[in-house]
C-alpha cells in the first residue's frame, strides 16, 4: 500500500464518513435515517481504513477485545432499554405508555428511549461488520 493519493484522500474523507454514520444512526426514528444503515456506514469507514492502511493498523485501532465488548453490550443495551418499560409498570419496550414522549418529527431528542435503542443497534451493527471483515481477511491471509 504505497498509494500516497489514496491515503491522503482517505485521511480527509473517512472521519466525515464515520461522523455521517453516527448522524444517520441518531436520526433513525423521527427523521430520515436508521440505526442499522448508520451502523453499516460507521463499520464501513473502519473497513475502508483497514483496507487502505493495512489490516495491522486497522486492528490496532480497534482491538478484538473492544469489538467483543461493543458487540455484546450493544445488544444488551437494547434489552436494558426495553426493561425501562417494565420498570415503569408497562410492557417490555413500551415507549409512550411508559410516560416517555413519542417524539416530534424532526426534533432529535424527543423520541424517548428509541434514541438510545438506536444507538445500541448502530454500535452493534458497526462492530459486527468490522468483525465479519476481519474474520474474512484472517481466513484469506
Amino acid at each position, binding site marked *: 500500500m504505497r498509494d500516497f493519493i489514496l491515503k491522503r484522500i482517505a485521511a480527509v474523507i473517512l472521519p466525515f464518513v464515520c461522523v455521517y454514520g453516527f448522524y444517520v444512526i441518531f436520526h433513525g426514528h423521527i427523521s430520515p435515517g436508521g440505526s442499522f444503515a448508520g451502523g453499516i456506514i460507521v463499520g464501513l469507514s473502519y473497513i475502508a481504513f483497514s483496507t487502505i492502511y493495512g489490516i495491522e493498523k486497522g486492528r490496532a485501532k480497534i482491538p478484538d477485545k473492544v469489538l467483543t465488548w461493543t458487540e455484546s453490550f450493544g445488544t444488551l443495551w437494547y434489552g436494558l432499554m426495553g426493561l425501562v418499560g417494565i420498570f415503569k409498570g*408497562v410492557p417490555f419496550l413500551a415507549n409512550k405508555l411508559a410516560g416517555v414522549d413519542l417524539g416530534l418529527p424532526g426534533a432529535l431528542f424527543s423520541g424517548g428511549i428509541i434514541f438510545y435503542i438506536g444507538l445500541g443497534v448502530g454500535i452493534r451493527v458497526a462492530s459486527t461488520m468490522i468483525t465479519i471483515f476481519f474474520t474474512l481477511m484472517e481466513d484469506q491471509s
Partner: protein
Amino acid sequence: MTAMIADNLPVLVIIVPLFIGIVLPVFARRLRLVEGMVVLAEALGLVGAGFLAYMVVTRKGADWIYQVGGWPAPWGIELTANSLAVFFLAVVMVVSLPIALFTIGNLRQEVGGNMRTARFYTLFLLLVGSLAGMALTNDLFNTYVLVEVATLSCCGLVSSHGTPRAAEAAFNYLILATLASSLVVSGIGFIYVITGHLNMGFASQGLEQIWQAKPHAVWIAISFVLVGFGLKSAIFPLHIWLPDAHSSAPSPASAVLSGLAVKGYMICLLKFLYVVFGPDLMKEFSVDRILVLAGMTAIICGSVMALPQNNLKRRLAFSTVAQVGYIYLGFGLMDINGLAGALFYLASHAAIKSALFLSAGAMISATGKKKISELAGIGRKMPLTASVFTAASLGLIGIPLFSGFIGKWYLIAGSLDSGDFLPTIIIIAGSVLCAAYLFPVIRVAWFESPQQAEQVNAEQQAEQPDSAAQEGSRGIALQDEEMHSGQQVQQTAVYQNVQENTPPGNQVKDPGTAQKLALILLTAVIFILGIMPGPFIALAKRAAAELLMLR
C-alpha cells in the same frame, strides 16, 4: 417487584436466555463464570416457565395475551401464554437445564479453546431463547424471525467441532434450512397478501372469511408452510440433512438439536396449521391425511434406516427421524387423544433423546470409540451411563413405567378413535423396530463378555505405538497440505489431540459429578413422566382442546 416480574413473565422468559447468552463472549477468559451464567440463565428460565405454567393453569377465562411495546393487536406483536405455549416452554427449560449441566467442565476439550466454548454457549442460549419465543409468540413474522435465529444457532452448533466433516454437515444443513426458511417466509407472505394481517388470530379470521374465494392461494400458502417446516423438522422424505448434522455435532449439541430444536419447528407448524388455518381448512385441503401418511412413512423408514447403522450417534439420529413420524402422525389424527398424545410424546422424546445422546456422548468421549460393536462390556466400566442409556432406550421403545409408553398409548387411543386401524399397526410395528435397533446396543453394552472386550483392547494397545506413529506422520502431512489455511490446521490439530488424549480402555469410568447429575435428572424426568403422567397429560389435553377449538 414481584408483581412487576409476574406481569411481564412471558417476555422475560424469552429475553433472559437471549441477553445472557449474548454477553458470554466477553467473559470467555473466565470459563467458570461463563458456565455459571449459563446455568443461571437456564435456572431462571426454568423457574419462570414453571411459574408461568402455574399461572396459566390456574387462570380462568380467556388466554393471557401480552402486548410487546404496549401496541394493541393488529399492529403490535402479541405473546400468548396458553396451554400449548406453557407446555412447550416447560419442555424446553426442563430438558435444556440438564444439557447445560452436562457441558460443565468437559465442553472445552471437545470444542477447543475458551472463545469457541463461550461462543458455543452463546449459540446454545440463543437457541433456547428462540425456542421459548416460538412457544409463546402469536405473530407470523415474529415466528419467522425466531425460526431464523434458531436455524443459524443450530448451524453454528453443528459446526462447533471444527472438523471438516462437521463443517460439511453444517453447510448442508445451512443450505437446506435456508431453503426451508424461504419457503416459510413465502407462505407467511401469501397469508399476509390474502388476509392483510400478521397476527395469528386476525389472519385466521381473515382466512375463514375469504378462503372460498381464493382457494388456490390458500393451498399454496399451506403447502409452503408444510414443506418449509417439514424440511426443518426432518419429516421422512425431507430428513436427509439430519443424520449427518446430528451425528457430527458435539454430544450436548446433538442432544439439544435432536431433543429440542426439531420440536420447536414442529410446534410452529402446529400453530400455523391449527391456529392460523384452523381444523376445518386442514380437513378441506386434506392436510390431516398428508400428516398421517408422512408420519407413518417416517416411522417405518426411519426405523429401518436406523437398523444397519454401526455408528452409535448415527443410529440415534436415524431414530429421531422415526420418532418425528409419531408426532406428525399425532398432529394429523385431528382427535383430542391423538393430539394430546403427540404433545406428550414430544415432551417424552425430548427428554429421552437428550438422555440417549448425552450418555452416548459420555461413552464415546471416555472410550474414544464411535462404533456400537466396539462398546462391548461398557456397562461394567460405566455403570451409571450405561444404565441411563438403557432406561432411555426402554422409554423410547415404549415399555410401561417409562414416558414413551404413555405417549404411544394416547397415540394408539387417538388413532383408534379416528377409525383408522393402519396407524395403530404402524405405531406398534414402530415400537418393535425401535426395540430391534436399540436392544443390540444394550446387549453389547451389558452382556457382551468383557473378557473378550479386554482381549480386543489388549490387542489394540499392542498395536498402538505403530498406529500412533502413523497418526503422527499423517498429521504432519496434513499440516503441510493445509499450510495456507492456518486456522483449520489448528482446529484439526486440536481435534486430533482430543482423540489421542482419550484414556485407554482400562481407565474408562463414569463422567464427572455435573455430568452424572445431568444424566440422573433426565432419567428422573423420563420416570416421572412415565409413572405420574396425570398433570402433564391433563395440560396436553387442555392444549389439544384449545387447538381443536373444543373449549
